[in-house]
């Protein structure tokens, strides 16, 4: 079961609480009042860190960020009703431990953007984005930044994914700085900046599931972290919609 903890930081909030996921999933029904299923873009920003391994890589780990249809059968369920989003890493991917200059971070270049119904998945791997997430150790306690954008149309769904650059993974992205980055390119246009360094991430990629693909409404925020030993700590989540 996910647990709630807290850490101390130099930048405010200096005591920040987090939800810890370890082979667990966080889902939250979104308030789509006024949007219904007619949203065109949803942007999901996450402030997070990964438990430090003490120097080793993390193997075979998936980090899914996206939307599901309801909370009962989300992405991680064998009976998944409908889920769409971006998968950082994979069931066979290595998250590389980077020592940094005393402030380590994990990175993974493997990814796919996907749609899942039950255990049937359609996906793509075009483009490139290397995610960098600070560990919970180091001389400076840090929170990182990632962002996923989904755009839906009648027959297609498009994806963007951004991560803070490796250069800023040595710095703490405070809550205000996190919100500042999520506020950029409202509506999902353009690559955001974190601590005034542009994120890594590429052009939009898309899948074409065909007409009626979103009959099962994507109305629930869905975050899944598959590693049971080294947890993902989530400090803040921000979502933005445009119709």
């Amino acid at each position, binding site marked *: 079961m996910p647990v709630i903890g807290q850490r101390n930081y130099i930048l405010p909030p200096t005591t920040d609480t987090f939800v810890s996921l370890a082979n667990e999933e966080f889902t939250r029904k979104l308030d789509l009042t006024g949007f219904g299923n007619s949203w065109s873009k949803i942007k999901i920003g996450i402030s997070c860190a990964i438990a430090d391994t003490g120097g080793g890589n993390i193997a075979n780990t998936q980090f899914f960020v996206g939307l599901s249809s309801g909370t009962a059968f989300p992405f991680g369920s064998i009976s998944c009703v409908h889920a769409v989003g971006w998968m950082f890493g994979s069931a066979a991917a290595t998250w590389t431990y980077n020592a940094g200059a005393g402030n380590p971070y994990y990175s993974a270049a493997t990814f796919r953007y996907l749609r899942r119904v039950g255990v049937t998945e359609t996906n793509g791997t075009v483009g490139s984005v290397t995610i960098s997430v600070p560990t919970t150790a180091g001389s400076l306690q840090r929170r990182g930044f990632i962002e996923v954008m989904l755009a839906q149309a009648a027959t297609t769904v498009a994806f963007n994914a951004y991560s803070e650059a490796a250069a800023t993974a040595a710095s703490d992205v405070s809550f205000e700085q996190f919100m500042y980055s999520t506020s950029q390119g409202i509506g999902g246009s353009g690559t955001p900046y974190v601590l005034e360094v542009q994120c890594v991430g590429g052009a939009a990629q898309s899948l074409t599931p065909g007409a009626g693909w979103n009959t099962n409404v994507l109305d629930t925020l869905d975050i899944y972290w598959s590693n049971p030993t080294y947890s993902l700590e989530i400090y803040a989540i921000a979502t933005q919609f445009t*119709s």
Partner: protein
Amino acid sequence: MPIIASRNFATGTQQYLSLSSSDYLRTLTIGQSWLRLRIGILYALGTVAENAWSIRSPSLCLGVSSGPSSSPSVQSPSHCAGFSVPTAPVNAAPTTVLTYNAGSAGNSYFSTAGYAFFKYTAGSLATGAVGSFTTVAPTTTTLGGALARRGMLIVDINKSAALIGNLTFGAYSTAAGHMGLDITSSDLYWALDWASATPTIQGVAMNGLALGNTLAFNETVNGLLDTIFLFWGSYVSPLQLYEIAVYKVG
């Protein structure tokens, strides 16, 4: 939600309305019965966590709308017209910025040469931007020995005829030379009341763009322009609104 606070200046304490991704609207007692309006504000912009960073994807809009529900802050405004920086009121990319300038003696400020005069009619956006104009606004910081300062922005809107006609726009802003100065209420009223040309405030000429950008607007079809709006689109760096004044020129 906008909040009210107060701040001390050399001329005394003044209250302000803090806007963060929010707007201020007020329906005019004169309704749409005007042929020329000047809308002026005294304001300052917050920095990003007191860093020397530019503000990315901002949107500052000042103008008139058909009722308070047609603000450019809504997803698809029905009918409104006005002035916006640094671009038209759309989803600006992160590379679109209000540029941070350190200034002198700690008196930092934001500036942009980007702007647009715009109108929404039935949810459709049209813009114009003929001529060069730079908007300059002080930051709210007092770090580094900075003076507590207010800047000024004025939008000048002319109707060619009542109800059905063209809207022609002009704009005036405090200049970089004002950024070591605090602009006061009397400066605002004087600037709104000037007869012609670009006003000089505290010995420094404002940046000006005279009436000249024109957009057609049919109030009979698109609704009466009877409400003024100020919209600030950043939810991290607040806009502090110290004063807003509307001057009916004609």
